[in-house]
């Protein structure tokens, strides 16, 4: 593979300098602490020194004049980072989930799958699974229906399209926490004199029958209402996806159908909707993986109310409030499995089609 080696004295000196600089800096940093403005930067500085050392090695690799090797060598830091922080940590979590680690001190005593079998019989976890299922179905259905409807409406060449598009899309830029806080007040369940939020609007319009307990309703309806803020945030995104799809369908196709005597409804039903299927698939994957790991929105909306519990919150409280690390890890791994079932086939498919190109 390494066909040629061209010695370039000035580059060699540069490489040696970089390697020495990095190594010396790492040596001193490992024996001292670097604190700037109250923050400990020692590890960050060691990381940077390591990268300096590595760049010196890259200069040497570069002398072999094999650019494929060089490009792989340059990708290596990112690959290593992902390998450790994603795959290595997943493996570590799996190991924790097979242990009996409870309490602050690590305890890796092997207990097999008993954390998992416990969870499958645990009332709280089963409620979490049901809540996630309700949330996922409601959230995806809401976003797809509203998103497609809005996209079709905006595709009619109406005036002010850009303004409408902006209005439907802006909630996407707000954090789930901020959204949960506002919607918590809008969907305030208080009754009588303390009626407020959207219920107050219904009351003053004499639409009392619409007054609702919202997310404080008896289950499973309470969970259904948590879908409202989530759809508010991401239906505009779904709309943008569909609008992109609609705009890529050529006008000639619609014109041809019109000439053949198709009504507008038929054009959408038999030509446009089938052509939008790949967009729907992308949207389901993206929205689905978000809803399977939904966490912050429910935290801000429900304040750890057990009736609105989801696996993300259970993992958090079990691990960090209850210090039951083994069980927390098991919940995390089960969440990962649910997301992987949805995403991995899509990623593999994506990789295959690209390799063919």
């Amino acid at each position, binding site marked *: 593979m390494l066909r040629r080696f061209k010695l370039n004295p000035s580059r060699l000196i540069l490489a040696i300098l970089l390697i020495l600089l990095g190594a010396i800096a790492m040596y001193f940093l490992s024996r001292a602490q670097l604190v700037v403005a109250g*923050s400990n930067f020692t*590890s960050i500085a060691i990381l940077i020194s390591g990268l300096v050392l590595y760049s010196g090695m890259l200069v040497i690799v570069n002398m072999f004049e094999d*650019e*494929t090797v*060089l*490009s792989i060598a340059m*990708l290596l830091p*990112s*690959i290593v980072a*992902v390998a450790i*922080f*994603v795959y290595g*940590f*997943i493996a*570590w*979590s799996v190991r924790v989930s097979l242990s009996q680690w409870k309490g602050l001190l690590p305890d890796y005593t092997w207990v097999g799958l008993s954390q998992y079998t416990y969870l499958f019989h645990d009332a709280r976890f089963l409620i979490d699974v049901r809540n996630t299922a309700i949330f996922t179905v409601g959230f995806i259905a809401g976003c797809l229906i509203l998103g497609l409807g*809005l996209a079709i*409406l905006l595709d*009619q060449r*109406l005036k002010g399209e850009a303004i*409408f598009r902006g*209005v*439907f899309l*802006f*909630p*996407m*830029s*707000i*954090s789930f*926490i*901020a959204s949960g806080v506002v919607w*918590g*007040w*809008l969907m305030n369940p208080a009754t009588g004199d*303390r009626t*407020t*939020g*959207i219920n*107050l609007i219904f009351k003053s319009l004499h639409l009392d029958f619409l007054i609702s307990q919202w997310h404080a309703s008896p289950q499973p309806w309470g969970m259904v209402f948590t879908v409202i803020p989530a759809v*508010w945030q991401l239906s*505009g995104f779904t709309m*943008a*996806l569909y609008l992109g799809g609609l705009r890529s369908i050529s006008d000639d196709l619609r014109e041809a159908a019109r000439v053949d005597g198709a009504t507008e409804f038929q054009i959408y039903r038999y030509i446009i909707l089938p052509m939008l299927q790949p967009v729907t698939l*992308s949207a389901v994957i*993206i929205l689905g993986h978000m809803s*399977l*790991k939904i*966490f*912050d929105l429910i*935290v*801000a909306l429900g304040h750890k109310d057990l009736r609105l519990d989801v696996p993300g919150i259970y*993992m*958090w409280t079990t*691990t*960090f409030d209850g210090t039951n690390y083994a069980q927390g890890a098991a919940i995390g791994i089960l*969440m*990962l499995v649910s997301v992987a079932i949805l995403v991995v086939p899509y*990623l593999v498919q*994506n*990789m295959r089609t690209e390799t063919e190109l």
Partner: protein
Amino acid sequence: MSRQTALRILFYFILIVLALGYLLPVYLLLLTSFKPISQVDLKTMWALPIGGLHIDNFIAGYKQLAPNINNSLMMVIPEALLSALLGSFNGYLLSKWKFRGSNMVFTFILFGMFIPYQSILIPLVKFMQYIKLYGDIPGLVLVHIIYGIPITTLIFRNYYAGIGTEILEAGRIDGASLMGLYRFIMFPLSAPSFAVVIIWQFTQAWNEFLFAVILTNQSNWPVTVALNNLAGSQLVQWNVLMAATLLAALPTLLVYIFLGRYFLRGLMAGALKG
């Protein structure tokens, strides 16, 4: 009136009703934020402020959140810039220097974008404690950069894939090396996707909650954690809370209003095939 016109009026009606619904939460935030304390009453939540606008709530909200807004800025700015630079290298190498298995490497990296972070949280906390980056902003920056590698690589890779190879071949003939081609040809062409990635990473990190709440001490809390804490406490009046929420959401909202075009492109890149 023709059927066509009636239909258009119906469309406008639906769109306007829906748009008002989408704006309702922001209307409530603005309305409440600008009321004086004396007019804050759950029964008159939807009444307009009487006798001019007041900014007392903003001042009170800002007092609560100022250190956290500062923490968020200190975290988000280096994070967004470094993420973009790293993503740009990776995207260039993975789109223009394809080697056998480079698609596999890309997919290997991309998977990191989808994982629920709960599945790596315990090792992450232990590791950050071990390397003494737990509890503070620099550690959070590092974590956001590393878990940002998949999305930033994806956006840059898709962008560079759209740039023809002819221009690189021309540079090749002029004797440019792998890094020379990046430095003199690709990097100067990358401004639009740098904008996309910087905006995207800024928004993501500003809005992020899980890493922030687990990995930082109370004095280093970013704004999302502080806001959630404020919302859960009984000591803060809800009008102050609304103003604080508006302040916490304002940076990303402004970015969206002024740079929304780029924001949208970032979203589309997140949809893999755009």
